[in-house]
């Protein structure tokens, strides 16, 4: 099944790698937030139809974090860099304005 992932606040020319259960699913370079829409990048990821592990690596910041997700409960994932770590939110919808 598919989930929506958005990279939101705090990115500034960063490299971002996302892994689903250890397999690379997204790679972004020079990822930069436009603050007025809180948006840096977004993608749809093919994930298992069961709880899985989402790993996010931001090598340009030395940040690597892991999130355990249930795709049915959290079909939308918003990731922001704040104070040197990744913060995940699970909004009802991903839309920007």
């Amino acid at each position, binding site marked *: 099944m598919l989930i929506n992932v958005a990279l939101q*606040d705090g990115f500034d020319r960063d490299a971002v790698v996302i892994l689903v259960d250890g397999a690379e699913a997204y790679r972004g370079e020079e990822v930069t937030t*436009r603050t007025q829409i*809180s948006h840096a990048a977004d993608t749809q990821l093919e994930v298992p139809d069961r709880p899985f592990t989402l790993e996010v690596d931001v090598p340009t910041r030395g940040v690597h974090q892991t999130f355990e997700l249930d795709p049915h409960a959290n079909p939308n994932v918003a990731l922001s860099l*704040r104070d040197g770590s990744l913060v995940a939110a699970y*909004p009802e*919808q991903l*839309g920007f*304005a």
Partner: protein
Amino acid sequence: MKTYDEGLDLLDVDTEAEEGAIPDAEDAAVLTVSRVSGLYGRPPITGPLAVPVPLEPAPAGVRPVRREVVRLDVDGRYPQMTVSGTIGGSLAMRVHWIAQLATIGTNQWAGTIWYKDGAAASFPYTRVRVTANHSRFPSGRSVKITFSGGGATKRTVVYKLLSPNFRTVNFEFDFQAGEVADTEIETCAHPVRPASLACETLSIPKVFQRMGCQVTTNPSSTVPAPPGTTWSDTEMHDAMQTHWSLNASIAQWAMWVFYASLHESGNGLGGIMFDDIGPNHRQGTALFVDSFIAQPPANDLNKAAWIDRMRFWTAVHEMGHAFNLAHSWQKSLGTPWVPLADETEARSFMNYPYNVAGGQAAFFSNFEYRFSDQELLFIRHAPERFVQMGNAAWFDHHGFEEAAAPDEPTMKLELRVNREQARYEFMEPVWLELKLTNTSDQPRLVDGNVLDANSLTVILKKDGKEARQLVPFRQKCVQPVTRVLLAGESIYGAVLASAGLNGWDVAEPGTYLIQAAAHVDDEDVVSTPFVLRIAPPVSREEEYAAGDLFTQDTARLLVFGGSRVLDRANDVLHEVVERFPERRIALHARVALGNPLTLEYKQLVSTDDGLELDIAPAQPEEAAELIDPALVERANLAAESLGHIRYRAISELVARRFAAAGAETEATRTIDSAIETLDARIPDDRPVKAQVIEQLAETREAVAGPKTQTKKTRSKARA
């Protein structure tokens, strides 16, 4: 033009009503005649400029130097129990203050001043006591404010009501051809809403009117575009320049709101304040009526009303960005004007409805079509330059809007460089030249030091970064030298923009926007923004060397023309000369290293007997070995990189010092090179003034006797 305001003009038919004001009956009922909130002012204070600012009236007959307004915010809609004030004047003299109030009696409040911006040293007060004088007629309303604390004598000022609104702003709503969306909404059309919400037809102007703004609107126009057109930010910016009737490259209380079909990025973008392009941000916003904001949940109870409400929310949300409001969850990010807390659950226009706990249904169940209190405080009471469209860049809080610029300026300030394109090599110091011209038809008196770095206000803004003010190394305390500037006449100056006490603000690769203000009497003469670009490093070696170069001490060497004492910084410059001889930074380094060797160098040294003056002899031969490859062998490049003003000044200085040290040959070579180089240069079709060449020739005669060079110069032809 249509006007929306807070409706106190119901009591004063001679004012706003004549200009087409549309009082809102319900708001008038809410306000009632007892309301005292609004904008108050006093006539300009008279008095001579001085530091600190004299806050009491000076003898009559002296021309006005300051205006003063206060904003009292204690009743009406969403009172913030705040009073704020601005004492106007030139940039260097302006003060903005804010106090939190508590009620202490009928129409009486008192509180502490918690925010000061600007020349705070001239405004020592820490507390205020406010008494409102209510009158049935607006023209009779006033507030008396007593300032106290801070060790200063109490100051009491009476201000008269100017307006029931805190700000005045103009909106223009334009539509892509074929796109239709209302700028108003029926608040009870959708069943998911607060039970207490008043059912009404609410317009976008009325939302901002309730924030404390008097709103005027321009007639809408249509932006021709085929159906299905998607828009990039640049295309919308172009459309704004073409279709917005108030488009101008200035800060103004006005914005353009564009109703378009879709953004080129797709339907996931509901709207955007797209205008972070160029020097005047936050003037243009757009909403995309066919994006996700037109896609209600499948089970929604009133899909049409849901769409109307989301479009309305989006439009106001983007307009909030144009007022420099961040998203509710971003309040603590960037450079907030005061420390702010994030408001992730706020029922504000600046929050995403679907981001809160419980989602959009929970949001709209408690949404009252308003902004949060801290957003209202910002809109109503923050320094104007932070809020006004086209002023401070998006997400930061610096700018020049509040410059005391006259309506009909009589002076013009230009920033320029002596090269075809304002592009700089990595590590190359940026010397900017300034030209201040009397554009009136009358002579003007100016201070001869007006273009010294410490007399100017220079703002440096790198793309994507907050603006910074240049803080020069040298603070001169000099007696003003009055100079007569005839009609059309100019004076010139040069300033190192790269570095100051703030550090190296113009050094990293990228695009910079620079703006300067010269202070002439009580006016700020503001330059047009100047854009320059710094190229990336061409090697890893340069990248590493930059870490050593971009220090305070090396910057001091470049500004002051070298030192024999700052050994570490001198080592860095020597390394630059050796490793990067063909790069422009080497020219600057050579001058800074050679110049101190051209004169007897006096240094106080500590001995067992106390301090002694140690005088090192001039070393003209060693100096020439360093300087000649820059000022003579690569003279044209040096003139371009140092700028004509700096190049000339250094050349004359070095030549005079060579001569004083008995090195006439070196002196002659240096000054001849300057004459020949500057006489031949015509950057941007601007030849060097003949007067400059003549003055250099006089210097040559002084340092080396009659000129033997036979080459015919262009200056003779011009003369």
